[in-house]
């Protein structure tokens, strides 16, 4: 067997193996999908640094695809692309799970704070209703205005929850709770002060 007849089939076999190297589009698409899902789960808010790194991995992956695409077909190697796609996908899935967990925790904390605030405002409004009219009217009217404002502010908590802005919802609810307790204390103090007086007759003014 001469040398020439040996080299030609080997070259052909090599060409067949390498000339057809293509980017792992399915793996890339899966990685991109996982990153998008991580972003949609709130990763850019709840695990911002980790999400930024995944985006970095995805960018490195795309650059590697571009670098390989720019080479002669014979020299293309998408092995690193496959590795990066696998890493990006698995990291995106992990970050998505972590973001979902943190988001749920934030939501639960906001809902709990909302409930506590609602209960406090309800108690304040009940105290306002108990306050006798005609007694220390200026203070009572001010307190009523405060209680009405607290009740209206509960809507803002709900709006923040509806838009998944849980940090705002939680801080607002806590502020309402705190203020509501202060107003209730003010009413109780006023009631203790004036409670012994007999109610005034209704007057036209």
């Amino acid at each position: 067997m001469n040398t020439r007849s040996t080299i030609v089939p080997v070259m052909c076999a090599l060409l067949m193996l390498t000339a057809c190297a293509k980017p792992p589009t399915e793996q890339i698409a899966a990685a991109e999908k996982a990153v998008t899902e991580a972003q949609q789960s709130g990763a850019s808010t709840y695990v911002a640094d980790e999400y930024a790194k995944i985006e970095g991995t995805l960018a490195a992956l795309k650059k590697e695809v571009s670098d390989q695409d720019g080479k002669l077909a014979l020299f293309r190697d998408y092995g690193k692309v496959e590795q990066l796609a696998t890493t990006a996908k698995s990291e995106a899935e992990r970050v998505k799970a972590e973001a979902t967990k943190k988001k749920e925790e934030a939501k639960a904390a906001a809902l709990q704070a909302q409930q506590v605030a609602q209960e406090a405002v309800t108690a304040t409004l009940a105290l306002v209703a108990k306050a006798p009219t005609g007694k220390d009217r200026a203070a009572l009217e001010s307190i009523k205005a405060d209680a009405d404002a607290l009740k209206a502010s509960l809507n803002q908590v709900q709006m923040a929850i509806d838009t998944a802005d849980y940090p705002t919802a939680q801080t607002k609810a806590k502020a309402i709770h705190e203020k509501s307790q202060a107003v209730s204390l003010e009413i109780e103090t006023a009631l203790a002060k004036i409670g012994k007086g007999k109610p005034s007759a209704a007057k036209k003014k």
Partner: protein
Amino acid sequence: MALAGSLTGCVEAVPQDVIEAVENIDRDLMELRAAEFSPNDYAQFAHQWMALKSRVQADEDLIRWPWEPNDLEIALRRLQEEGSHTVVRLTKERESLRHSAESKIAQVEDRFRVMTLQVSAIDSRLVLGQKPVETDLLMKQAHAFYEQGQYDRSLDASDRAAQNLATQAALLSNELGRYANRDRISRWQRMAQDTIAWSRIHRTSAIVVSKADRVLTLYRNGQKILSYPVRLGFNGIREKRYQGDGATPEGRYQISSKRGQGQTQFYRALVLDYPNEEDRRRYRLERKTGQIPAARTIGGQIEIHGVENELMAQTLGCVMLDNPQMALLFDRVDKGTPVTIVGALHEQNSVAQTLAMLGVQREET
């Protein structure tokens, strides 16, 4: 591999200390929460770091000749240097932001405190409706965000509280601006002078009440006889418009009847002839233009009276005196005595001064 390297003169692709240095910078940036408050800076670092990290992983089994240039190590060292600068810059920026948030909280809280005191001093809390609570809640949020290290959110809440305070100042100016209006004050001064002149001409008593000063003055033969502090309705600083608004009317009235002990729940009372024709005309106009709800009547039973009991600290739209002073006044006036109630008698009245001060604050906001 290290042994082989030392024996053969070869070196690792990238020294481990460079990688550890970049990892430390990443940790510093995460501790600074760079991804949250400076996402572009962190994204730039993270993109470079991830790109280089993938190269490090791909090259980790490589060894090079000592004289071979190592692009990866050079790139990592450059990232380390850039990252160090970013850490220093973001640390400064974050400290600056923290300081801004802290200053803003102190500034807005100070304004809120001053406004609360001023509004209380001129009994105008009810003019502001729900606004004071909204400001209070925003400031509590600003504090909470500050404690959480979310300085940008803290600043945002403080800014909104400052805007809310500016709205309150505008509301007060709109509602009580007549106390700072020179023409209006001149008209009130003329009303008071006419009443005093009437007292002098008819050689009888007349009463002038200044709402801004919360003072009732009794004149006899045009001469001031006595002057007492008074309390007004729970919304007394406003101009009375309809029943139940808690406002004290402004205008020229007369005592229509005197109610002694046993005839009133308020120790003694001087009933005024509110509403007068001017009150009725204004009421009809405001009803017609929809400024007063159809269900609201004009009200009545406006009196100068004493205190019902020690626990009653306010009145519903009347003018209230302490009982000893009410007793003295009661004996010095008759049915038909003119009573003129005005907003203010001088330009530097307490309401005008408050509005001027809050106006300056509003401009600073």
